[in-house]
């Protein structure tokens, strides 16, 4: 579905990510993990067509990304930024309707098919019940589902999500991840960056670990996310537990002493 061949990514000559080779199969959920600043967002921007590679090629369904017009791309691939804000108080339905823009000509009215797709997107994300409410009146968990409904209204084959669970309460985090899983079962290919390794362990088919400008590990989460790798990449001691059928989870081992902060030579704050 998506293929990267020796891709180099950077901003005005300064390389952020190098030698990226990656393939994502249809219906697969690929989790992107790595510490802050490791380039997760940069990689997502490149695959969404918003950042041209300095070298190498990105393919979507055997077509090079730069051969597609923005509209064509928007019909194949939907991408959500980490922080989306809406400057005016649209209703949920009005926002989800924007997902049909790449499918409609400028002078066309909303067709029956457009309405059906919108309703389906609202249903799948369980936002139908508050589709007439204003976006600013929703909680962040509800709002996140609206953004996903907007992306689904594009009828994409690929969905890119940048930390969709950031700033959400625990129950909302699980709800969003369950939604992503159910979408993958409907043959949507999902590339999602996650800062929570437990969510990656539990919900991703594959994970790619970004560290120091490269993909340092790629594969099934239980095999890739080892205690050693996490210590190397995240600079934190962890222990991985196995909980019967439900799978693995990561626990952070407390450091013996907060030595780095203690030894700054400053005795009192004020």
């Amino acid at each position, binding site marked *: 579905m998506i293929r990267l061949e020796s891709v180099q990514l950077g901003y005005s000559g300064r390389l952020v990510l190098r030698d990226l080779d990656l393939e994502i199969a249809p219906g697969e959920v690929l989790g992107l993990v790595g510490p802050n600043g490791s380039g997760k967002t940069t990689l997502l921007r490149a695959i969404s067509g*918003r950042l041209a590679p300095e070298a190498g090629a990105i393919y979507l369904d055997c077509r090079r990304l730069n051969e597609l017009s923005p509209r064509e791309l*928007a019909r194949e691939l939907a*991408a959500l*930024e980490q922080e989306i804000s809406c400057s005016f*108080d*649209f209703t949920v339905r009005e*926002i989800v309707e924007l*997902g049909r823009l790449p499918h409609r000509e400028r002078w066309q009215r909303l067709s029956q098919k457009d309405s059906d797709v919108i309703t389906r997107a609202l249903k799948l994300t369980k936002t139908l019940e508050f589709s007439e409410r204003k976006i600013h009146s929703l909680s962040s968990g509800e709002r996140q589902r609206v953004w996903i409904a907007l992306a689904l209204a594009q009828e994409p084959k690929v969905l890119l999500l940048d930390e969709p669970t950031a700033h959400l309460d625990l129950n909302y985090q699980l709800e969003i991840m369950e939604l992503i899983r159910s979408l993958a079962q409907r043959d949507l290919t999902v590339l999602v960056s996650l800062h929570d390794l437990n969510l990656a362990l539990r919900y991703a088919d594959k994970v790619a670990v970004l560290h120091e400008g490269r993909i340092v590990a790629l594969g099934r989460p239980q095999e890739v996310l080892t205690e050693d790798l996490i210590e190397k990449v995240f600079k934190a001691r962890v222990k991985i537990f196995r909980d019967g059928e439900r799978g693995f989870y990561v626990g952070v081992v407390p450091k013996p002493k907060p030595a780095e902060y203690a030894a700054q030579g400053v005795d009192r704050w004020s």
Partner: protein
Amino acid sequence: MHHPKSWLGVLGALVPIVLGLSVMFGAVSLSLSEIVAVLSGRATDQTAVTILIQIRLPRVLLAALVGGALGLCGAVMQGLFRNPLADPYLLGIASGATAGAAVVIALHLDIYWGAVPLGAFVGGVLAVAIVYRIAQTRWAQLDNYALILSGVALAALFSAITSFLLFYSGASHDARRLIFWILGGLGGAQWVYVFGLLSVLIIAGMVLMLFARDLNALALGEEMAAHLGIEPRHLRRILLIAVTALTAVAVAVSGTIGFVGLIVPHILRLIVGPDHRMLLPASALGGAILLTLCDTLARTVLAPAELPIGIITALLGAPFFLFLLRRRAQLGALL
């Protein structure tokens, strides 16, 4: 009355009513039967014909067109810059036009017909063109902050030119003329202005309406709009060209009338909602209604003397706007 479309119908029906009332009132009042008589060519009173055809009608129509242009452009600028404080003059068009008019007046070129509007139009377009160029080259990408900041800086520069010309010319006649122009007004209305502005309004209005749905997507930010298949830079260039042309013509024929382009889109967003496909035509109609009413007051309150219309738009607009904001704040909703 919850459906935005029915509000458009209400506004559309209000426009001819307000225009009709505005035509009736003035230094000399005309009755409805006199107006009908003149328009159907059966009038016997030649003064009524002159007042209506030569003075009243072009003025009322120009007020409506200028108001419509400013309301429409204000709604587009607020959507484009994702900022409720944006107005048609954001990128320095008003100070550029004022400086252009000041140059014409200081050089005593205003004895030629159409020189002041032409100078104002050129000055306004030039200001926006410079702002656009600066924002493009100075910051690798043409982002909104760069545009707004260069707009502010250039407005200061053009105001300095205007002040210098005012100060230097010394002739109180010139200064008075320029101040009158800055305050704005529709006293100079002529049929040629009406038809000129009408044609620009139709063309620019059609372009802006075609891109109304893109403005909706832009409310989610430029990155999200791009993910929906819109090219934000391309969109911004088209919208700025249309808005600049329309605003520059409106300013050229009426001076810099403030507040209409700021408050009209706000008020109508509260009424018809933020969807630009409704908001743009509603703002055009609302601007037409508001400015026609304000101009009617400007002509009648101190008749036969006239008040500068900018004073009325601000006097009426500011308290009403604050009232709406306050009511909105009590409801706990954002704009």
